[in-house]
């Protein structure tokens, strides 16, 4: 398979290892290694779906499709009936509102750091500070929201006890901003200077350069970061748990309380068993499915807009 002769090694003064390496088709090996690596993701996802499905079987067999549309969550012994509807609505509501709040914040802050004040000390400080937000544990966000934000909302008269969809969405928005800005910053900064200067030389204003040169070029990265941010918002548990009021009702408005899928799992998993546990796991499975659908829809919409 390989030529290992001593003569060649002596003639060219190379080591055995180098001789072997020279003959190895490194491209093929690399391609195989990369492919093998990609299987890890498949493996993890498969393990996850398998375990979630297995755990939800008792609940699926008892409630069937009705699980999706039932707004009841009754753990009373002998009368147990579980349904995911109010959690689905709660999750969608909080995540979407959080993203609506976070997107302009993240978008403009990215432009601030990567375009308007690019390269200056201010930009470094701001981007470092925003990145710090990602390092704050979610429980602290929950506590901060509980002790600082909630009384504010109560004094503003927006809600009697301050819990609710808006409170949690606000805190969620702050939590996901670093995810939305980090990748966007990098992609905006990597837009080649020549493109921008060409546009300026044609007389474009800053806004026009941003809209017509930077954004199209950085669109892929920015979209990826917003999808990641949304994923983070949907899956966030502790912070939302502390602020949403945990009432098993369908939220009637922004200031109403409610409950989310991740939050109910986190709240009740530690103490659940039997059918309740199975229903909680089914909610986890549903969350998986929901994230898939929303991501797919989002990507489709963006492709259409492009």
């Amino acid at each position, binding site marked *: 398979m390989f030529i290992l002769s001593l003569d060649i090694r002596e003639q060219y003064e190379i080591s055995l290892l180098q001789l072997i390496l020279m003959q190895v088709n490194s491209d093929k090996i690399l391609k195989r290694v990369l492919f093998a690596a990609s299987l890890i993701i498949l493996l993890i996802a498969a393990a996850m779906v398998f375990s979630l499905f297995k755990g939800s079987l008792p609940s699926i067999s008892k409630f069937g499709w009705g699980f999706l549309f039932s707004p009841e969550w009754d*753990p009373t012994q002998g009368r147990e009936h579980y349904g995911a509807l109010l959690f689905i609505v709660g999750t969608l509501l909080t995540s979407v509102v959080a993203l609506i709040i976070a997107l302009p914040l993240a978008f403009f802050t990215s432009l601030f750091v990567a375009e308007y004040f690019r390269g200056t000390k201010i930009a470094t400080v701001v981007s470092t500070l925003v990145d710090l937000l990602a390092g704050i544990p979610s429980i602290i966000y929950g506590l901060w929201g509980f002790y600082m934000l909630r009384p504010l909302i109560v004094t503003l008269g927006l809600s009697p*006890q301050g819990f609710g969809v808006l409170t949690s969405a606000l805190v969620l928005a702050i939590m996901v901003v670093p995810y939305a800005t980090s990748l966007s910053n990098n992609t905006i900064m990597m837009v080649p200077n020549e493109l921008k200067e060409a546009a300026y030389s044609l007389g474009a204003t800053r806004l026009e350069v941003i809209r017509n040169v930077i954004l199209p070029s950085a669109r892929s990265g920015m979209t990826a970061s917003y999808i990641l941010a949304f994923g983070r918002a949907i899956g966030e548990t502790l912070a939302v748990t502390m602020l949403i009021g*945990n009432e*098993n009702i369908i939220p009637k408005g922004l200031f109403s*309380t409610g409950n989310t899928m991740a939050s109910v799992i*986190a*709240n009740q998993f*530690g*103490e659940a068993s039997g059918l*309740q546990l199975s229903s909680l796991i089914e909610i986890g499975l549903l969350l998986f499915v929901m994230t898939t659908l929303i991501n797919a829809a989002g990507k489709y919409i963006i492709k259409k807009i492009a």
Partner: protein
Amino acid sequence: MIMKKIKLLVAAFSLLMAACPMAKAQSISGAGATFPQPFYNTAFMAYDHLAHTKITYGGIGSGGGIRSLKDKVVDFGASDAFLSNEEMKEMPASIVHIPTCSGAVVIAFNLPGINQIKLTPNVLTEIFTGNIKNWNHPALKKLNPGVRFPNKEITVVHRSDGSGTTNMFTDYLCKVSGYWKSRIGSGKTVNWPCGIGAKGNPGVAGTVHQTVGSIGYIGSEYAFAERISSALLQNKSGRFIKASIASTSAAGKGKIPADTRVMLTNSPAKDAYPIAGFTWLIIYKEQHYNGRSMAQAQATLRLLDWMTGRGGQSYASKTNYAPLPPQVAARAKAILRTVTYGGKRILK
């Protein structure tokens, strides 16, 4: 260059690991209820100094503790609610319950200027079902003649997460109210007819503290430590009792079954606080499973023996928990002496 740095790092890391005393000390792990966690942590730390045994305890919830024991990934589980007969059948082998202390559930309220209110079981139930909606309801006024209640809506605060505290409270409500028993029932999570949910004892305490006109139930260790004012409850013998370590212990002074599986709520004892209960540590009766060594089994049992003896129990009241009444402690020790390894008793 990079290879050199990596080699240096690996060498440093291995040196670090070697430097740390690979102690021959025994280590035990347990998981379960958050309610007794402060007591357990303090006691376990003291035990570490005495017996050089490291104990790791994770407060992941009673259900998590039982699950961990079922999966045999811990040496003992901890639960505020004893396992029912069906639940015991689901365990892979027979288990024993060892009570370690008792605690209570206090009813906290936020009414500015009012330090003390009396509640009967009936009024308490009516508040938590939402039938009594306002503080100036005639029933409340009748119970507390000198108190000037404001005209304010009652905000009920309950737990959003599953908890043994909820289990104890709802068990009591079931015992005193046929309505509650048939419509809502008891459990670690229930379908509350009204009120908002807060996470953990601190969540409920914090919400009550910040919301005027609110009322909620809190675990006693939390309430005592924070000196939260709570309502006086009328117990089964008709007296209004304040929640305290003494009145909690008094609830355990009655007849209890041999395996200690009993809910102490609504105790008939004269001085008993009506909402009280034990918390248990749970282990397998036959300790030779999963390749468990005799040493490990011995270490576990010695720990539990100390916990139910004078050593461990002295830390209970220090941390605001009610120690076991003498006959319950004796019962616990007797149960420990039935635990076997390979069929032979471990403790003498």
